């Protein structure tokens, strides 16, 4: 099962950009991550592939340790404080791990070495790909464009439904990776006609130093940055890091603390705080809510969520209810029934949210953007493809209602 959705050729969008986008985005469906990584980085990418090729059985190929010098990925972390006895307290995410010498934090990608805390994943890209920005999903941010998408190993939570657990729950040394310096990411994005760099797949919070440096490099090259994050981050880090980016999508995984504790291994409150802060910072924000059957699909929860979003983030923030597919530790649950997603949308619509979408159901009418005033369809989507785009200068062409979003690069 894969949520990868291939788009349709769009006659209505036969402008110069879109065939190019189809060529770039539609191509790679590759057999493994190594090829996947190579493909995404192949346009002039320098360096050699990672050295973690493993034999099939449990007999090492050679009697000496592999060359795994990770010094070029190792950079002092930015958000932590030193404690007595060579211990540290990480101040990046609300978990605030206290980490002894030679140990790592919960995310597995930050290590205390003699009382100094290091990220082990700066420029250590384990997944890179060129995706339609709708895949993130961003529906109101540069629609129809491509995002040069990168990830490193690691995550600061452990969602039991994670589809990318093989990278998010791994330690960096367990995955093949490329050294891709921030400037190189910007170059590759530009070469591949991607107006944005997306930090995605695993969790950008845990590679925040790389994100910050890459966002700066991108801006210097005229490339924007978009973040796909769980929002489980401390306020200072959020402001400093996400403040350098242009748009943020937050995975709001539930509206209940107990779900966050039991299914996510995190907390709800800091995520809500992040959403409020991002809005105050004026960042373009979209919210995704993955609807997991029996766990976070009650009417009351949908209603509470919608009310909270309207009050704290505003009715114009796009809210995506997306379909769950059984993965990782929740393989015992069914795919989310479409009527459940429709019920969620109905409730959120009724609460007054203007842009409520249904995701991971290709072809569903709730993938489209309608004018909240006159009801005309303004953006028609089919999976990850845009099949009709009528928004003109940020307005509904029928009633001139402003439609919030960043519609053009």
């Amino acid at each position, binding site marked *: 099962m894969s949520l990868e959705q291939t788009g349709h050729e769009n006659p209505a969008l036969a402008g110069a950009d879109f065939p190019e986008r189809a060529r770039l985005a539609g191509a790679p469906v590759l057999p493994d991550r190594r090829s996947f990584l190579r493909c995404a980085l192949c346009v002039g990418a320098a360096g050699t592939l990672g050295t973690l090729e493993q034999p099939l059985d449990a007999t090492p190929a050679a009697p000496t340790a592999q060359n795994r010098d990770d010094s070029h990925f190792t950079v002092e972390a930015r958000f932590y404080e030193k404690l007595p006895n060579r211990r540290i307290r990480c101040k990046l995410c609300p978990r605030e791990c206290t980490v002894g010498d*030679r140990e790592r934090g919960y995310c597995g990608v930050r290590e205390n070495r003699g009382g100094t805390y290091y990220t082990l994943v700066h420029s250590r890209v384990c997944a890179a*790909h060129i995706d339609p920005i709708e895949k993130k999903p961003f529906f109101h941010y540069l629609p129809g464009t491509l995002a040069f998408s990168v990830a490193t190993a690691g995550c600061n939570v*452990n969602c*039991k*439904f994670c589809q990318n657990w093989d990278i998010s*729950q791994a330690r960096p040394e367990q995955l093949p990776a490329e050294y891709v310096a921030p400037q190189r990411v910007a170059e590759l994005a530009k070469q591949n006609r991607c107006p944005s760099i997306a930090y995605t797949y695993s*969790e950008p919070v845990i590679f925040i130093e790389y994100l910050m440096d890459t966002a700066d490099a991108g801006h210097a090259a005229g490339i924007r940055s978009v973040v796909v994050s769980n929002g489980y981050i401390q306020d200072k880090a959020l402001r400093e890091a996400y403040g350098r980016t242009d748009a943020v999508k937050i995975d709001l995984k539930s509206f209940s603390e107990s779900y966050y504790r039991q299914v996510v291994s995190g907390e709800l409150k800091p995520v809500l705080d992040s959403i409020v802060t991002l809005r105050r910072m004026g960042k373009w924000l979209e919210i995704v809510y993955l609807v997991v059957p029996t766990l976070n699909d009650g009417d009351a929860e949908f209603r509470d969520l919608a009310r909270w979003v309207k009050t704290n983030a505003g009715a114009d923030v796009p809210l995506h209810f997306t379909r769950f597919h059984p993965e990782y530790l929740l*393989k015992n649950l069914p795919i989310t029934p479409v009527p459940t997603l429709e019920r969620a949308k109905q409730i959120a619509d009724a609460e007054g949210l203007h842009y409520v979408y249904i995701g991971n159901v290709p072809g569903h009418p709730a993938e489209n953007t309608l004018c909240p005033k006159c009801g005309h369809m303004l953006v028609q989507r089919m999976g990850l493809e845009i099949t009709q785009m009528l928004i003109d200068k940020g307005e509904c062409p029928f009633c001139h209602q402003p439609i919030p979003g960043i519609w053009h690069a």
Partner: protein
Amino acid sequence: MRQETITARRKFLKNFLANAVVVGAGDQLSLPVAASANSHPARSRVVIARDPQLRGSGSSVDSQHMLKLLDRTMQSLFEADRADEAWKKIVHPGQCVGLKVNSLGGRGLSSNPVLVGAICERLQQAGIRAADIVVWDRDTRELERAGFRISASGNQVQCFGTDRVGYEDDLAAWGSVGSRLSKILTRRCDVLIGVPVLKDHDGAGVTMALKNMYGAIHNPNKYHPNGCDPYIADVNMLPEIRTRMRLTICDATTACYEGGPAYKPQYSWHENALIASQDPVALDTTGWQIIERKRAQQGLKTLEADGRAPRYLSTAADPRHRLGTNDPQRMEKVETALA
């Protein structure tokens, strides 16, 4: 961490789908009788064997003294007249025996290679081929730093880390977290002997037999919240570990009572002892007492007062896990010393 998948999926996905893991699935796993809780005798024997002369007049452990100390430990544990009789109770010719050492603490505070060498010698005398003994931990470089000589071929004892062969693609889960297991464990070892070190641990309180198994999973960082409780117990419930585990010989030649698990010379001392048991919970409980005694001598708070009492021990002993006993009344503690 989301459902926006990367394009390429793991090659083993199909295989993984066929071996679906669900939360709590471990609860239903039926363990082989040999490894079930019922295999623990009514009282769990824990041997603490000391040798004040273990280092002779120097600071390094003497190999001849170590052999004698190991023999005394094994004979006491298995009530055997001869050491080889004791070893034959847990291993059989033709089996591959994994020695899971702890090499995190460098040369100062890792499983002592002299002890491991002595175990290898006795295993061979019990009929195990040298090449069927694998000394392993998570990382080959850490093993080297701890003083082990890496070898992965030929008719000699094998020694390397999981980084050299990787982890299983499939997920193993007992409790709330899933992990990929070391292929050394799953593909090489018929029998597992833990050779941890007696140490304080900043999160768990102490680390010995049970926490040593964190070195067998790919994501130990996910098992550290809440003082590693219930995670330490959960990891040891994984059938791949539980069915292989026969014995723990804890290296207490150099131990650490504060600031662990990394080596800090100011908090380390020479206990010159081995602690052995087939009950890892009883062993850890006994080791905890030794650490508390040392902390008291040094004027430090108890681990309880420090907010670090090893709560994982009662979880490991609870009816859900039954990995052993943490009840001193159900332990038979044997202290012995070489003259």
